[in-house]
């Protein structure tokens, strides 16, 4: 064959190579622009999903993606191992059929090591999912150090057999790596769901701590913060969400009934100051709050003719919203209820109730 004929054949090989998997215009654009640089072409094709991704028409890519891009319900996560094994076997078979190029062979060997490690139920470590992502700075797949891409880092301004081979090998190796990465990432789903569930539970707890439990005014938040700081330090910064709160100098409004007061003055709003109190609850598995119980030492202040307006007492709290207290002064007993309780027995206007709620008082509607 003449030199001219050889070059013509190489050109055809180039064109055929370019045509393979480039049905998508985005992929064709990369191939046309980077034909002279096989390594860069492979990098970009993989990054653009043309190798091992959604735009890849290669049968192995479709098969593997069908296996590992399933949305499995959480109760079927046990099937993942089997699906990943199948997917990796497909990639191994693809590499075996890619010829005897040293680069493809090296990739096949690295994959085999990973599969054996998985079969032995050992952790993959450096060969796990992220290790199969291309590192363009170091020009390697961290999980496959034996794959030396310098073999395809050629200047192919002029077509040569080595270039034609580099283009195809580069595609095969990058496609395989991407498919392995996807497969192993799929195998990480149980870890993901576990972490997500834990984060959601903890987030729910904090939500309830701030938005369901009794409102903490700045100084209460500070005092409870000091206690939590200690618990957190003991837990090396990973303490659970507190299941209690101290109440300190907390002013609010309640409805107080004083039997000895003049008629018409007996049941009326009073300022309630909880000087010291404690409220605790339990956490449910889903991060919801169990029943909360608490108690506070209080003083009430109100304007009533004929009796002292300052009345000490003890207040009990139930479920953050309901509070009842007994007060006594000048031999006159009084009963204080939070507005949420009061609404059960009086016709307090809705607006007033929301303004004067005790405890979790005065919060804006979410």
């Amino acid at each position, binding site marked *: 064959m003449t030199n001219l004929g050889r070059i013509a054949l190489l050109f055809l090989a180039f064109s055929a190579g370019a045509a393979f998997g480039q049905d998508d215009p*985005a992929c064709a*654009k990369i191939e046309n622009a980077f034909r002279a640089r096989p*390594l860069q072409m492979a990098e*970009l094709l993989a*990054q*653009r*999903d043309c190798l091992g991704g*959604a735009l890849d028409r290669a049968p192995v890519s479709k098969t593997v993606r069908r296996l590992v891009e399933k949305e499995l319900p959480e109760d079927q996560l046990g099937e993942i191992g089997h699906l990943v094994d199948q997917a990796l076997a497909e990639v191994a078979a693809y590499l075996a059929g890619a010829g005897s190029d040293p680069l493809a062979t090296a990739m096949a060997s690295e994959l085999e090591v990973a599969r054996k490690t998985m079969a032995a139920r050992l952790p993959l*470590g*450096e060969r*796990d*999912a*992220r*290790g199969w992502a291309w*590192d*363009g*700075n170091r*020009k390697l797949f*961290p999980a496959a150090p034996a794959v030396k891409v310098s073999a395809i880092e050629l200047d192919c301004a002029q077509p040569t057999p080595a270039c034609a081979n580099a283009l195809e090998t580069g595609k095969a190796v990058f496609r395989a790596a991407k498919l392995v990465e*996807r497969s*192993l*990432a799929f195998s*990480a789903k149980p*870890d*993901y769901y576990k*972490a*997500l569930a*834990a*984060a*959601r539970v*903890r*987030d729910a707890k*904090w*939500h309830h*701590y*701030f*938005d369901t439990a009794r409102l903490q*005014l*700045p100084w209460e938040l500070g005092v409870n*913060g000091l206690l*939590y*700081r200690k618990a*957190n*330090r003991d837990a*090396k*910064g*990973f*303490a659970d969400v507190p299941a209690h709160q101290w109440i300190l*100098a907390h*002013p*609010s*409004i309640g409805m107080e009934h004083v039997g000895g007061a003049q008629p018409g003055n007996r049941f009326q709003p009073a*300022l309630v*100051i909880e000087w010291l109190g404690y409220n605790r609850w339990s956490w449910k598995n889903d991060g919801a709050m169990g029943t909360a119980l608490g108690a506070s030492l209080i003083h009430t*202040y109100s304007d009533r003719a004929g009796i002292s307006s*300052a009345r000490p007492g003890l207040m009990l709290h139930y479920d953050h919203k309901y509070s009842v207290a007994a007060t006594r002064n000048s031999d006159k007993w009084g009963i204080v209820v939070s507005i949420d309780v009061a609404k059960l027995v009086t016709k307090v206007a809705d607006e007033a109730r929301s*303004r004067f*709620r005790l405890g979790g008082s*005065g*919060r804006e509607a979410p």
Partner: protein
Amino acid sequence: MAKQVVFVVHGMGDFKDGWGAVYSKLLKELYERYEIAQFLPFEQQFEVKPLLYNDRFDKMRADWKAAADAVLGKLKPLGERGAQALATATQWAQSAGKNDFLRTHVLDVLFYRFIPQLAEAVRTSIRRQILEGMKGAETWSMIAHSLGTSVAHDSLVWMFDPASGESLPPEKFRLQALAMLANVSRVLESSENGASWDVYRSVVQPNVKLTKGVCNRFLNVRHTWDPVPLPKQFKPQPNWPDAATREVKESFQDIQIDDIEALGDPAIVHDLGHYLRNPAVHIPLFRSLIPLSAVISQDEEDQAIREHRKKTPLAQAKKKIEELKKFRLSDEEEDWNKILWMFHRFFS
């Protein structure tokens, strides 16, 4: 289609839902200046997801205000009874709900550093948002700014430190790139809780070993004249990250910029957009997000930096000075021809 999710964590300030749209647009605009966008379009490569934690601070302040509003009228008579301090404190709680710089900026930082329950609630919320946001993504990265750098650091500790009991293995889930702009994570670190939270000893670092660290690339960016990240500055010693990782080009990038885009509000040097618009920041960022040799050539970088600098007031002033220099004569000049010619050129 699998994309890289790029989370953006805001800094101190008054942020609401949808705050990130402007930065998503900015990142796209910046990326599309470069040739790589023709081959790897922004929309196909990235999904920018802003994370929000300011809502927790806002709600706290609003709750305090509402509670104080309800009782303050009744508290006033207490002054006569020696409980004025409580009334004053309640008044302060009420004022926390005001929307001014002190409450929306400074108070948030104090909340985060000194109220551990709020800090933990914020970290947990961010962690949940990240985990929900990364579902289906091929990989993920994070850009954090100012207070957000500390929030990001601490949230990542929870996500990756085995001591948390809820950690993810980095070899399966590590970030591609973590960019800390105006990094205040050191001054706000809760190192009283141990090494896990010390920014130089925590897991939040790049590492060439996939089973260590949390990311492939770590960018630490500060503006020379931004005073915010200066106290207890994040300035790691040569042993951070470890020697093997330092040897890998671009695994850790310590970037210092000093261009100022515009005169006027000096706080512009702390602005997230001001950081991102600087090519000395966004080019390394894009190269870290997509670590391919074809991403932004040296020529493109040089030109972008030149273009950017040309627009800064300092560059314009320097240009003016250079122009003025052309009029200067010797301070012993007595040749009237030259003097008059200079006058003519200078005033015409």
